[in-house]
Structure formats: structure tokens, C-alpha cells
């Protein structure tokens, strides 16, 4: 790094939300021609800090300098005028508009829209950096990675030369991630300043030139990426030494528990979501399910849990004594009546898993409110359970009477997983159990899942981070467009190979 002046200097930046100090006197420098990785656990204030740079939030105190000139950023417009563009974790795009309309949104210019010349300029930007965007396509017709591309083009179209990306790879396949990284490197070489917020250590090591670490809203330190390693960075983020390897105890006495045969599911619109899927999940084993998002993972789990109408096939639950129960065509209540204890940790935690406005105790009650004889519900035992979950899983909450929507993502997930495993399940279904969670919370969840596995539970783990799937699961089933692309043993599987299977049926070798 030559001695250039910082493009952005943030000095003494503080921001509070109510009583929570999200950012506390942060110093940060961002340079042109450099990719800076901003690291920190959930709630450490990374996104808040960047939101202040992009004008979404206004700092309570502190100064921001752009090219050594002090600036005041009151709104996203101010930020754009200063050349700062942010690509948010949740895309800021209007679904019913086309790519072009989204890109020129909010820009000043002639009253009448000139979509043609805008589309031309967009194509020029795409050619310059190697993007692939159809300016006339509607956003709702696009894949996640296309949407992200539109976001990046949008920022470039506005002439931004300081780009902030908030967890850009959370929703991408490995191949799409590689493509994104290539583009980011192109932009860095073209002299732009790039900040990337991510949880994934291997991406930090792979892509960034410098890392800066935040913890609990405070700036901990920064250093060139090549002088550090994943272990050191994680320790800085968490504040104490953390074991970075995911445990993978050997399967405990694996016996077939759930047998899925020739399962076919169609969505309401008649689109085939699962096509002739067959596999067996064993007790005491973690079966990972990999695939690009929307390849039938959700439908598969919901079919097993009795939430998804199916077209054909069978799902049998095999009891310890070898007798079989058919789960297909039953709703969750009748499945429970069979004496099958199924736990489901859905993808949509606050939509399907928990009721956001209810407190911890009442959320525990969602599983037990039918118990008891009188018309009055038993409120005591769920509260007790909530207290146990809070204690055992270290849920950070002011108390069990706090609505779950006030908890951070990691704590919400702990509450949900805690409730689900409290019913002593024999089958545990989890969908994206660590999505949006930081390293520390993620490891707590892995740990919980492993403990269930050792108790002889058949765990089905739908995940998106291939590195984790490869480290955690005993076997990995790869879905591709609703079909089984293959099942590989978790030990010794190659990331590349699984990635290939996700995008092409069977990958290089097709086996069961």
C-alpha cells in the first residue's frame, strides 16, 4: 500500500438506538484501490457504521472526511453526490420496475424519462466491468445474483467510486461469488474504494487487502489481510480465543429413520418443485442438503413436516422397532398424534417459527398450548421452559417477557432452536439455521445440532454455506432444480465438486 490519502476518514463516530450504543467513537479509514473487509459479530455495528456513511442514519457525534474535506451526510442523496454507494444486504430495488427504471430512480434530469439513452449507458458500464444485465428486464423476473448485479450497476451509474457491499455473498452460489469477486477486483484495479461486510473468513482472506474489526460497537483494529489469519481475526471479533473447527462426531448407531421415496411436489402454479426425490435420513446422523436457493429445499422440509401438499411418492417414518408410519398426507397435528416427534426450525424464523410480537414464554407455548385438560392454558411450564432456554443457550434478552422481535437474529434463532429441541425430537429439520448469524452464534447452533445428533436424532440440515456443510454433515444431498443431483459423504467431499453438482445435475459423477 503506497502512502495515499484516505478516500474516507471517519472520526469518533457514535450512534445510539435508544439505550443501545451501536457505534461508539469509531475511527475508520478507507482507501482507493483497496478492498477493505469490515468484520464483526452480529450487532457489532458494521452495518450501522456503513449506513451512516451512505446517509441512511445520521451519526450522533463524530466527523466524516471525504478526501480530507469534512462533509455532512444527511441523506442517501448527499452520499451519492459524494460518490458513496452502498449495496444493501436486503436489496433496495423496486420489483415491478425494470432494471433501467431502478437504476435511474431518484436521479435528477429532464422531466420526461429517456429510458433508451439510460439503457445505452447501462450497457456501457456492463461492458466495462463484465456485468451481464438486461436493462429491460423486470426485477421480479431476476435471480438473486442478477438483482445484485443491478444494484452494483446502479451505484456505478451514479458515478460512485466508494462502494460498500453489505454481505454480498450471503445469497450467492460459489460460482456466482467467484464472478462477483472478479468484478470487485476489476473495480479495485480501476481505482475505486471498496468496503465489504462479511462473516465468511475464507472470503476475507481470498478477496480483501485490509481488514478492520468491530466489536460491540467499538473499533478493535485494522491490518493488512496478508499479515493475519482467520484465527486471529475471529479472536479479535469475539474478544477471546475461539475454536474455529466445527466438530463432527462420528454418527451414533445410524439406523434408517426417515425414508423418502419418489417424492414429487408441485407448487400451486403447477411448477415442479421436487422431482422424484428419494433418500434416507439416518438416526444419529446429520444429512446436509445443499443447493442453490429455491431448488426445492423448502418444499422438501415442509413435505416431511406435513406442511406441503405432495403429488406422489412416500415419506415413511421408521420407528426403533422397525415398524413404519406413513407421514405423507398428514398435517403436523396428526403426525404428532402418531407419536412421531418432529421438530422443524423453518427458514422464516419470525414468520413460521415464532410470533414476533409475543414474548418468549408465549412463544414456547405455541408447542404446548394443546396440553392440559381445562379450557385455561398452562402458562407456568412454558415460562419455565423459556427461562431454561435463556439460561442454557445464553440468550441475550432483558427478560422472558420481551417480545422476540426485539431480540437480535442470533438470539431469536436460539429461542426457536431451544424450543424445538426441548420437545426431545427424533427428527430435527433445520433450514438455514445460521443465516444472518455471526460466527459465535453460528458455532453455538452447530454445537446444539451436534448434541442432538449424538442423542440419536436424525438431523436434516439445509444450509447455504458449503464450507459449513462440508465440515458439519455426515452426508450431503445435493439438490439441483428439484432433482437429487447426488448424495456425497461429508468427509472428504470437495467443495468444487459439490458446487458443480448444485448447478448441473449429477455434477461430474452421479451416484446415490
Amino acid at each position, binding site marked *: 500500500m503506497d502512502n495515499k490519502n484516505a478516500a474516507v476518514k471517519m472520526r469518533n463516530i457514535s450512534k445510539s438506538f435508544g439505550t443501545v450504543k451501536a457505534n461508539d467513537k469509531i475511527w475508520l479509514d478507507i482507501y482507493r484501490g483497496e478492498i477493505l473487509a469490515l468484520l464483526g459479530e452480529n450487532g457489532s455495528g458494521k452495518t450501522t457504521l456503513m449506513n451512516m456513511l451512505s446517509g441512511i*442514519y445520521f451519526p450522533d457525534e463524530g466527523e466524516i472526511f471525504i478526501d480530507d474535506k469534512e462533509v455532512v451526510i444527511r441523506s442517501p442523496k448527499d452520499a451519492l453526490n459524494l460518490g458513496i454507494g452502498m449495496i444493501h444486504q436486503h436489496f433496495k430495488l423496486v420489483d*415491478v420496475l425494470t432494471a433501467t427504471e431502478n437504476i435511474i430512480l*431518484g436521479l435528477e434530469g429532464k*422531466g420526461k424519462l429517456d429510458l433508451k439513452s439510460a439503457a445505452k449507458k447501462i450497457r456501457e458500464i456492463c461492458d466495462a466491468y463484465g456485468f451481464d444485465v438486461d436493462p429491460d428486464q423486470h426485477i421480479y423476473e431476476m435471480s438473486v445474483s442478477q438483482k445484485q448485479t443491478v444494484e452494483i450497476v446502479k451505484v456505478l451509474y451514479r458515478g460512485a467510486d466508494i462502494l460498500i457491499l453489505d454481505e454480498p455473498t450471503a445469497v450467492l452460489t460459489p460460482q456466482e461469488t467467484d464472478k462477483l469477486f472478479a468484478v470487485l477486483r476489476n473495480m479495485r484495479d480501476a481505482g475505486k474504494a471498496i468496503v465489504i461486510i462479511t462473516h465468511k473468513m475464507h472470503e476475507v482472506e481470498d478477496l480483501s487487502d485490509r481488514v478492520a474489526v468491530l466489536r460491540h460497537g467499538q473499533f478493535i483494529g485494522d491490518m493488512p489481510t496478508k499479515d493475519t489469519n482467520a484465527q486471529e481475526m475471529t479472536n479479535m471479533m469475539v474478544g477471546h480465543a475461539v475454536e474455529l473447527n466445527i466438530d463432527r462426531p462420528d454418527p451414533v448407531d445410524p439406523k434408517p429413520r426417515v425414508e423418502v421415496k419418489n417424492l414429487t411436489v408441485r407448487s400451486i402454479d403447477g411448477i415442479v418443485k421436487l422431482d422424484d426425490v428419494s433418500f434416507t435420513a439416518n438416526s444419529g446422523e446429520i444429512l446436509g442438503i445443499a443447493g442453490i436457493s429455491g431448488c426445492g429445499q423448502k418444499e422438501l422440509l415442509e413435505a416431511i413436516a406435513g406442511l406441503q401438499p405432495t403429488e406422489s411418492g412416500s415419506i415413511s417414518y421408521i420407528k426403533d422397532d422397525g415398524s413404519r408410519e406413513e407421514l405423507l398426507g398428514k398435517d403436523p397435528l396428526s403426525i404428532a398424534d402418531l407419536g412421531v416427534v418432529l421438530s422443524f426450525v423453518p427458514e422464516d424464523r419470525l414468520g413460521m417459527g415464532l410470533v414476533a410480537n409475543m414474548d418468549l414464554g408465549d412463544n414456547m407455548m405455541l408447542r404446548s398450548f394443546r396440553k392440559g385438560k381445562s379450557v385455561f392454558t398452562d402458562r407456568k411450564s412454558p415460562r419455565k421452559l423459556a427461562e431454561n432456554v435463556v439460561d442454557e443457550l445464553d440468550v441475550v434478552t432483558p427478560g422472558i417477557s420481551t417480545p422476540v422481535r426485539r431480540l437480535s437474529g442470533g438470539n431469536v434463532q436460539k429461542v426457536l432452536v431451544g424450543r424445538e429441541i426441548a420437545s426431545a425430537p427424533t427428527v430435527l429439520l433445520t433450514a438455514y439455521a445460521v443465516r444472518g448469524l455471526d460466527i459465535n452464534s453460528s458455532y453455538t447452533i452447530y454445537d446444539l445440532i451436534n448434541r442432538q445428533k449424538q442423542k440419536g436424532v436424525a438431523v436434516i440440515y439445509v444450509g447455504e454455506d458449503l464450507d459449513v456443510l462440508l465440515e458439519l454433515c455426515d452426508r450431503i444431498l445435493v439438490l439441483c432444480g428439484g432433482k437429487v443431483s447426488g448424495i456425497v459423504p461429508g468427509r472428504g467431499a470437495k467443495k468444487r465438486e459439490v458446487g458443480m453438482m448444485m448447478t448441473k445435475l449429477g455434477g461430474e459423477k452421479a451416484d446415490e
Partner: protein
Amino acid sequence: MFDIVSFFPRAVMQGVPLLFGGTGEIITEKSGNLNLGIPGIMYVGGICGVIGAFLYEQSAAELNSFLAVAIPTLSCLLGSLLMGLLYCFLTVTLRANQNVTGLAMTTFGIGIGNFFGGSLIKLTDAEVPSIALSATSKVFSKSLPFADNLGWFGKMFLSYGFLAYSAVIIALITAYVIKKTRVGLNLRAVGESPATADAAGINVNKYKYIATCVGSMIAGLGGLYYVMDYACGVWSNDAFGDRGWLAIALVIFSIWRPNLAIIASILFGGLYIVYLYIPAGTQLYMMELYKMLPYLVTIIVLVVVSMRKKRENEPPAALGLAYFREER
């Protein structure tokens, strides 16, 4: 034989208040504000026009045509603007629930209208519970002088007062602005996803305020048209009926497109009065059933649109939701 030449103008005259209300509500809803106060606002627009006209008729010995139009129109616009501002202050600035606010505004608006309407009726010492402003009404409903010479064509297309044509022109302009201009694009973005619009540097609150207030003023003209032209300047309490709700149904019927609303409003107007043209004889209940038609077709359109699931035909995604930038 069904008399289309006499039916069509009546359908149009029924449709014009709905078109004003519908266009106003479309602009409002495009900004993400679901203003259920529209019936109240149209009512207030009507009574404000009546108050303006009443005071002018009382004070001037001889009516000047320009003032006879300008004074009621301005007071109507002012009254509905105030209602729009009140709605915005509650829902945008204070982020109150839009449905509750809207319904309260409707009750409030009708209450205001009936209060002032009743007071004016008292003032005039009339025998009947209504105020007649026939002089003002004559100016409002003046049609082109040569319309009568053009036979059925004149009767069907040229026999209306200037407000009816304004309604169509306003709807066409609105359609153009929403579809083709930068302001329209920004407005659509505000209604679809305020956070996106905000991040793109659009002042969300400003757009919501302006769209809702402009929409309210346009809707208020619907009330004015109803009293001054359709009802020949006769105001009686509660005569406006359920036209305000029909205007909101019209928005759904025309899938948020003002240009479609022009045709749809005439259709609605027609359906609203078709019972008068269908011989029902003594079977009065048949009439009541026919009066349901506009609502019935709205439900059918809702069903069809939901079944087709085309994104462009759906309501603005953030309709009814308050926006706060720093929400976590």
C-alpha cells in the same frame, strides 16, 4: 329498445364524481397512502364549494360567471387540501394507522359536511331541508352552445359542464405523469418500496404529502361536480350517498390506471343507474339488487386480477404502510 342516447350521458354524469375520486385516490395510493378518507374528502369538497357559492350568491347582486366558478372551486380545493394535509400529518408525520385514520376522516368529513349543510339550510329558512344554488349551478353546468345542434353526437359527448371534461383531462394527465415522467417513476417507487426510494435519494415524505394532497384536491372536485352540476346546485345532507366508496372501488377496478379509470367510471356510472332503465315493475327488490352491480364487478375484477397474478396489476407493494427510515 334500450335508449343508449339518453342512458349514456346519465352514466357519464354519474361517473364523473367517481372519476375525480378515483384519479385522486390513484395518485394517493401510488405514494403508498391508502386514503380511505376519500368519501369524507369528497363530501368536504362538496360542502366547501356550497359554502363559497352561497356566500358569493348572498353578497353579489349580479353573478359574474368567472367568480361564480372560481370562488366555489377555490373553496372546494382549499377544503379538500386541508383534509389531505390532516391525513398526511397523521399518517406520514405521526405514522398513525392509515386505515383507522382514513375511516375516521370519512366520518369526520361527512360530519363537517352535514353540520355546515344543516347550518346553511337554517340560514336560508327554507321549507325543504336543502339549499338551492341554481344561479351558480347554471354556470357550472353550461355546455357548449352548439351542442344541441349536433343531434345524438352532441347529446352524448358535448352536453356536459366543464368539470366533466376536466375530470377526463386530469385523468389523462395523471396517467401520463405516472407512466412517462421522472416524477411519476419516483412516485411509483415511493409506493412500491419507500426504503428503496429513500436510498435512491428521493424525499419519501415530500412525495407522500404532495401526492396525497393533490389527490385529495382532485377528489374534492368530485364532490363539487356532484353538487353544482349533477345535483343542479341543490345540497341536501347525505345525498352524496356511497359515491366515495365507489370511487375507491373504481381504483381497484381500473387496476391503478387513471386512463382505464375514465372508461371504468362511465361503466360504474352506468351500472349505478342501470336499475332505472330496466323495467322492474313492482318488484322493488330487483332494483336494490341492480344497485349492487358496481360492487359485484369490482369483486370479479379483484378475483380475476389475483388469479392472473401479474405483478404490474397489483396494488403498490407498500400500500398502507408507514415509512420510517431508521426503523430497525
